């Protein structure tokens, strides 16, 4: 095994990157200036060294608690529950949400051996017990994501907190013609009076 092979193997472990792309990336780095490669290495090293989960919400952060949890402008009485830290970035990009977050770290999937104990459910209950007005369940609208929302809703019920679920339906600005069957079926099921 040469160091070149090592790097190809490392690239190939990344999501969406096959063997061929891993080779292309490796040879691209070998052709470019040594400083370019070192800068990439430093950036990866810094991320591994300094980024960790927020001790309050589980968001990925360099500070602890994270910037959202520490901000005086955020409404701590509303918690938005998401599967992954990357979901926070998507919701933040909307600029519409002023509450705080809670990252579950995945979704229920018994087939993959992921039950409630593998997710950050207990820390969520602890946070809600400290006094929260509303919990918004923003897990993915997949079968597993919906089941996770149902489960979290059920364990929150005894605490008497208001629990809401993100609406699902047709993508705004999209063409009805190009929406897939599941989306249309769900949008029909969730239709409203006018």
């Amino acid at each position: 095994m040469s160091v070149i092979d090592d790097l190809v193997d490392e690239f190939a472990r990344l999501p969406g990157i096959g063997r061929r792309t891993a080779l292309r990336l490796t040879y691209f780095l070998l052709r470019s200036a040594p400083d370019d490669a070192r800068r990439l290495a430093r950036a990866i090293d810094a991320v591994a060294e300094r980024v960790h989960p927020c001790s309050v919400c589980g968001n990925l952060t360099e500070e602890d608690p994270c910037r959202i949890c520490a901000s005086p402008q955020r409404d701590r009485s509303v918690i938005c529950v998401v599967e992954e830290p990357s979901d926070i970035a998507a919701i933040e990009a909307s600029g519409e949400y002023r509450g705080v977050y809670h990252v579950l770290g995945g979704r229920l999937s018994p087939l993959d051996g992921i039950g409630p104990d593998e997710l950050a459910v207990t820390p969520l209950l602890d946070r809600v017990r400290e006094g929260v007005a509303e919990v918004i369940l923003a897990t993915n609208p997949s079968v597993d994501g919906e089941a996770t929302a149902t489960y979290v809703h059920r364990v929150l019920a005894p605490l008497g907190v208001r629990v809401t679920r993100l609406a699902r339906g047709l993508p705004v600005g999209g063409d009805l013609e190009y929406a897939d069957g599941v989306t249309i079926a769900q949008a029909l099921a969730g239709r409203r009076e006018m």
Partner: protein
Amino acid sequence: MISGGNGQGKTNLLEAIYYLATFRSFRGARDEQLVRFGADFFRVEGQVGELMDAAAEHHTLSAAFHRVSGEKRVTVDGREALRLSEAVGRLPAVIFTGTDVGIARGAPGLRRRFLDVALSLARPAYLAALQQFRRALTQRNECLRRGSSAAEVEAWDEMLVTWGAVIVRDRARWVRDNADAFARHYAAISGSGPARLVYVSGWKDAGPEDDVEEWRRSYGAALERTRHADRLRRWTRVGPHRDDLAIELSDRTGARGEGLDLRVYGSGGEQRTAALALRLTEAEWLRGAMGCEPLALLDDVFGELDRQRVRRVLELLGSEGRGQVILSAAQPVDWAAEARDLLQVTVEGGRLRSAARVA
């Protein structure tokens, strides 16, 4: 008409064509079993268009499966389909096989599969609901198998009920809407007494088939009732995955006046007739639902069916539409070819050899 000796590749060719309809083997074989020995992958490509209308829209469908990576890639006009439901049904097709009698004679799973394939071809939303339901069911059963808490098991119930209700609503409606067509085809082929289709749900006897809310409510209640038994037996005992499409001989009745089950009381001939009638009903329904002629594939039905039945099928396919028919047979069957203007092809060692038009 494709003819050739045993093991020369007749069924193989029809399987490849039908693969572009459902993206699965009609024999129920797994994708890796469809790859030629010694090869890493297979790829099928087809042009789909209206036979009688050259100006109509044409589509190119392709499917490729790589055995090592287990990756399946389906494209429509060169663009990769992100979901299978985008591509299923682009080629409306119905296949008649020598083993179809199993649908009438065999286990309920074969009849559910018949309904699932027919509905999926014409309704992408049905296929999507089926996939969602299967995911929820597998997860729920895994919870039961592991003996997980009630809250973990019941977390899957809402998805099971949501998609299960769509599935049974669509199936029950299909049976209601196609019962007459089935009875007509059955009578036309057999010339004997009538038979009828009944959708049998394990939890709801009758009622409005169209009301998805009612199905949802009754399925939820049924899951509630079997909750305890599910935990004991460690799997989900009630749902669309346990339903049946019953075929009743309605001219003969049992002690309580009910129609007699064809599986139990039907003769071999009646069962073969029922299977053929189901396929003809499927073809007719696809024609109506998709607004075009389905491609009819007849795989070696001549060994199983007598001359009169095959003739009747070809007449029905020929009289009701102008769709394309591809048949396979061990020997060129002259009298079958007479029924239609057929191109004769022989297949030997996996290669198509000659072509001659029989006037």
